């Protein structure tokens, strides 16, 4: 099935890699969601809520703009 991409792109995968190769499950546990949701956010299949987006940025010690970007097209 073709994936419907959201307008929000992110570099969570890179940040996970830089954070001691953190797994999706570890990140999911830290922010309180399922691994499938982290996978969907990473692949651009789901735009996270502001709460989840801030929780993710807090894990990596980054700002929202450093993790997420809005692609206007």
């Amino acid at each position: 099935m073709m994936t419907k991409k959201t307008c929000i792109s992110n570099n969570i995968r890179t940040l996970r890699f830089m954070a001691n190769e953190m797994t999706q499950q570890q990140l999911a546990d830290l922010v309180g969601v399922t691994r499938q949701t982290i996978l969907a956010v990473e692949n651009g299949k789901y735009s996270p809520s502001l709460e989840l987006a801030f929780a993710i940025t807090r894990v990596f010690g980054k700002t929202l703009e450093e993790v997420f970007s809005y692609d206007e097209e």
Partner: protein
Amino acid sequence: MLNRTKIAILSAVSNLIWFILTFIWNRQRIAPIGGEELARAWGVYLLVLVVGFLVLDALSAILIMTIEKRAGGQGFEEKTDERDRYIEGHATKTFRWVFFLSFLVALVLLVTGLGFQTFFYALAFTVLLSNLGMWITYIIGYERGL
């Protein structure tokens, strides 16, 4: 494939099979009946159809989660999060809209004088289509994204 997608596929397929089986059963059952008994027979059929859907949906979830648990997964302890609620919201919306539109068509068929048998047939399809619409939204939501 996610467990929730598997549940949605199994529920949709079992709902469709249940509809076909009960539809054939009902057609044979109502053929010799007339008058007020016919309306009651349709009522029984719709009740059997809806209760069957609910039971099959529950059984689909139990079956998939039991298989998943045996394979070393979390089974019924699998948590839900904001994405699940988001997809559920869309699925419920689809159910509501399909049910509303199909019910409207059923009512139009009734008032145009096509007979109340046609109305009941349309009502049965309303139940099926709204249910299938809901499960398809779940599948699209989890596999493709909404």
